[in-house]
Each structure stands twice: as structure tokens, then as C-alpha cells.
């Protein structure tokens, strides 16, 4: 996709001089690196700059319509948080339940079907699952809408209805990963020597699980959850595109098409920093939960 923003806005008929003029106003003529640092320092002051696209030509003269990137992002961010938040609330308990019970009844029919199910979901990319839902639940049997048209004024009930399909998709995809990781973490704990010792000391099955295994399990599980929240965040980009859901991911993709660079940069920054924070959190949990560090010698 060659060509830059200035040329794009002014259209094919732009003359060289007007392109130059627009370029210098937008700062596109400055060398990229100092531009980047300038942008970064502005970001830390809360100023994400102005969207390029707000300047698009309009019929009639309505003055300078450039919008602040921040104004553009905040509603989208709220939408994405809603989507991922609801998906997380559904996916996490389900995945933990499935994962833990599969580990407890290892190699049973239940375990094998649960594992098989998670294998299938893990192998299905978001656009596959998403379109299947659309086909089944929106087109053939119109239960839910195909496009999740959410805006500022949508009521909460309507929100749930409109975002049902994207939530299903995101949930299904993440659940598979979470279930597998949880299952293997629990199996790992159950094969520890101190679990055998507990059995030899007469502990009942219930005690072994609740009193002995679980206290050692919450840490790896917390890590699994945090890591999968990070995956979910990335997965939401595709899901938003499939359902045309007005979230940050959709915005970022759309802005690349329009070559609206400040917006792209801002979105990318938000994704990246959230991802980094979540991973940092997972590492931190791993460190804190180690009893050797909690209670030093």
C-alpha cells in the first residue's frame, strides 16, 4: 500500500504544491524518528494528537473538523473492554470447571471428550468460529444480529443481545486454551510426592483435592488466566472485524486502510501496553505465590 496520507486525502487530482502544504502541516515532512519521540512525549501528557481523518474534505464549508484521537478512542475502548470483559466472565469459570474436573477424572470418557472438545476449539481460528455463528444463529436461524451495532446510547440489555455472537466466539476460542492449561497444571500437582504422602496418611479423596492440591493450585491457575486474557485481547481484533463491532481493534484495522497514522499508533500502543501489563502480572503472580519467597528462611 504505497502512497501516504496527504496524497490519499487530496485525491488523485491533487497538485504537487497542495500536497506539500498539507504534508508540512501534518508534520509528515519531518524525519520519522524525532517525530516519533515527539509523539511519545505528547502521549505521556495525554495528548494523542489529532486524527488525520477528521480533516477529510466535506461538502460545504464546516471549518476544521479535525478530531482529537483521544476523543475517537475512548468510546471504542469502552466497547472493547465490554466485549472482552463479558467474554472473560463467561470463559474463565467454564474453563476452570472443565479443566479441573477433567484432571480429576483423568482418562475417563468425560476427560477425553472435554480434551477433544478443547482440541477442536483451539484449532479453530476466530474468523472460522465467528462466521459459523453468523451462519447458524444469524442467517439461517435469525436469533442474533449479524452486525454488532453498538454505540454510546445502547442500553445494557440491548448491548448484551447485540454482542452475544462476538462474545460466544471470543469465549469459545479462549476457553480451549485455558482448559488445557488448567488441566495440565492440576495433573502436575496431583502427581507430586506430597500428594502421595497425604494419601498414605489417610486423607480422603475430598481432602486430597481441597486441602492439599488446591492451595498449591491457585498460583498456576492465576497465571493461566492472566496469560489467556492477553490472548483474548489479541483475538478480539479479528472478532471485532468479523462482526464490525466498533472497538479498538476495528478502529486500528480501519485506520490502516485510511492510513490514519496517529490513530494506528495510539491503538497499537494501547494493545501493546495492556498485553505487557498482563504478562508482567502473570510473572509477578508466579513470583509472589512461591512460599519460599513469601516466608523467607
Amino acid at each position, binding site marked *: 500500500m504505497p502512497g501516504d496520507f496527504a496524497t490519499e486525502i487530496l485525491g488523485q487530482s491533487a497538485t504537487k504544491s497542495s500536497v506539500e502544504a498539507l504534508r508540512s502541516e501534518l508534520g509528515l515532512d519531518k524525519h520519522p524518528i524525532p517525530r516519533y519521540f515527539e509523539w511519545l512525549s505528547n502521549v505521556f501528557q495525554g495528548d494523542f494528537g489529532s486524527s488525520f481523518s477528521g480533516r477529510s474534505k466535506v461538502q460545504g464549508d464546516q471549518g476544521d473538523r479535525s478530531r482529537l484521537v483521544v476523543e475517537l478512542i475512548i468510546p471504542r475502548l469502552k466497547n472493547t473492554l465490554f466485549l472482552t470483559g463479558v467474554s472473560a466472565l463467561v470463559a474463565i469459570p467454564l474453563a476452570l470447571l472443565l479443566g479441573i474436573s477433567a484432571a480429576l477424572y483423568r482418562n475417563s470418557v468425560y476427560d477425553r471428550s472435554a480434551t477433544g472438545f478443547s482440541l477442536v476449539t483451539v484449532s479453530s481460528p476466530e474468523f472460522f468460529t465467528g462466521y459459523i455463528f453468523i451462519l447458524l444463529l444469524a442467517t439461517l436461524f435469525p436469533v442474533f444480529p449479524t452486525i454488532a451495532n453498538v454505540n454510546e446510547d445502547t442500553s445494557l440489555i440491548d448491548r448484551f443481545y447485540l454482542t452475544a455472537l462476538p462474545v460466544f466466539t471470543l469465549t469459545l476460542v479462549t476457553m480451549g486454551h485455558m482448559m488445557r492449561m488448567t488441566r495440565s497444571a492440576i495433573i502436575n500437582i496431583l502427581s507430586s510426592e506430597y500428594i502421595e504422602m497425604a494419601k498414605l496418611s489417610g486423607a480422603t479423596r475430598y481432602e486430597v483435592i481441597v486441602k492439599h492440591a488446591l492451595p498449591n493450585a491457585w498460583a498456576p491457575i492465576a497465571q493461566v488466566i492472566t496469560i489467556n486474557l492477553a490472548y483474548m485481547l489479541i483475538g478480539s481484533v*479479528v472478532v471485532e472485524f468479523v462482526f464490525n463491532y466498533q472497538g479498538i481493534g476495528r478502529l486500528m484495522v480501519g485506520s490502516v486502510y485510511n492510513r490514519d497514522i496517529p490513530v494506528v499508533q495510539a491503538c497499537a500502543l494501547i494493545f501493546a501496553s495492556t498485553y505487557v501489563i498482563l504478562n508482567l502480572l502473570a510473572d509477578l503472580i508466579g513470583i509472589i505465590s512461591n512460599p519460599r519467597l513469601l516466608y523467607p528462611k
Partner: protein
Amino acid sequence: MSENTQSYSAKGEVSNITKRRTRFERIKIAFSKAPLSAWFGMIVLSIYLIAAFFAPFIAPHGEAEVFPVAYAPWGGEHLLGTDQIGRDILSRLIFASRNTLGICFLACTIALFIGTIFGIIAAIDRSYIDQILSRSIDTLMAIPVMIFTFILLSVFGPSNLNLILILGVLESTRFFRISRSVAVGQVVLEYVEVAKLRGEKLSYIIFREILPNIASPLIVEFGVRFIFIIFTVSSLSFLGLGIQPPAADWAAMVRENAILIQYAQYDITAGLTPLIPAAIIALLALAINFVIDWYLYITSGLKDDIK
């Protein structure tokens, strides 16, 4: 049960040891006991590989050959219809295997080489080289691959070469981490020290001592990352930044034909058309997962084989 200690011999020493089966025998046994899922996985994978290698001979039409009717229904000349420009969908599906598998395999292999070599070096030299490498890799790993690739491609342009190089470098971090952690487990064992004490060169220690002992987990990681790279490339293509037209790509085909879904009530095949390339990706991932699981089972089980 008495044995005269005077006639004690080292040769006849205790061993509940079964005679080692030759490699050929072991492979034969492994295959004969492979579960249905493993067979499914291997057969499916072979089909994809054949499609990738022999695409020009198998596909009924050309990859970019345009026909007069766009969105043609299934049947006749075009078993799966035509797409939005009028290209034969079936042929494009077959050619897409070549593009996707090729690019992803190259990227994964580059990642494997870079990551493993550096990982082993970091494991052997645990002082400042390890620190520098590990810190920089940690920083690189903190950035989500898809977002980063997305940005880089929008800046540098979405060419196949860029795709391979960017993903190759970003994914090498995963290989670094796993090869380093497994290698560290080997490096502390005395046989590596024995080699060092002999005065062996670094390359000997890496390739003849350590590598054979870390091969198994690396193979598994290759499979896992391969799937991840396929998904990343597909998501990027789906969003428009991956493999560029006129080259065929499964995920791009999903997006191109997504509009057909709404006609499912009238013609179910129309609704299915965009789902087929997506299902192809899912099937591939499933097949690879089955093979990986089976390989994991064998390599852990084999430890009991030779006691």
C-alpha cells in the same frame, strides 16, 4: 539364592534390561500402536503437502485466472463456484496451500535456527552473554506478535519477504526460550563438563553433545509455533495485511467471500463458500495438533521402553 562372590563378574551384573530394539523396530511398533487421531493427522497433513507441492498439476484452473461470472454458484466448470472477481475458488484453495504452507514453514524454520543456536549459546555461557541475550529477548517477547507484525507491515509494506522475516525474528524468541531452558538442564549434567574438560570446541559441544538431547522438545515446539504462525499469517491476511492478491490465501478468501453468507437461506452452498477456506485452516491445525500429541505420547512413553 547364593552367588559366590569370588566369581563375581562385572559382565554378569544385575540388569533388568531388555535388549534395545533397533530404531527401525521402534518406529514400526510406534506406528502400529498409533491411535486413530494420529493416523487422521498424518493422512490429512500428507494431503495438504501433496496439494502444496503439486498445485499446478492438481488444480483445474489457474490461481489468478479470471472467468466471466463472479460469485458463480457451485457446479459444472467451477466445483466450488467463483469469487468476487470471477476466479475459480477450488483452484485458489489448492494454490493457497502452497502460499500459506510455504511462507509459514520458512518463517518457522528461520525462527527455529536463530532461536536454537542462540538459546544453546546462552545456556552454555551463563555469564554476560546469557544476560544480554535473555534481557533483550524478554523485551522482544513482551510485545504481542500479531500487533507488532501488523504495525511493521503497515509501515514497510506487506510483502511475502517481510512477512517471513518479521515472523521469523519474532518467533525465534520462543525457540530461544525453550531451547535455552532445556539446554540449561543438559549443560549442568556432567557429560557436558567432561567434554569441556577435554578441550572440545564450542561447535562440537553444541551440535554433538547438547543438540541430540534437546531435539524432542524442540520438535514439539516447532509444531506448536507452526500452528501459531499459520494463525497469525491467516489473521493478517484476513485483515488485509498478509498475503496480497492476486496470490491466493485461505483467510483472505474468507473475507473476500464473506458477503455470501447472507444468502445462505436461499442457497446453502453460498453460505458455506466462505466457511470452506476457514475450515481448511482449522483442519490443518487439528491434524498438526493430533500428530504433536501422538509424538509427545511416544517420546515420554519410550523412556520405559529402554530400562
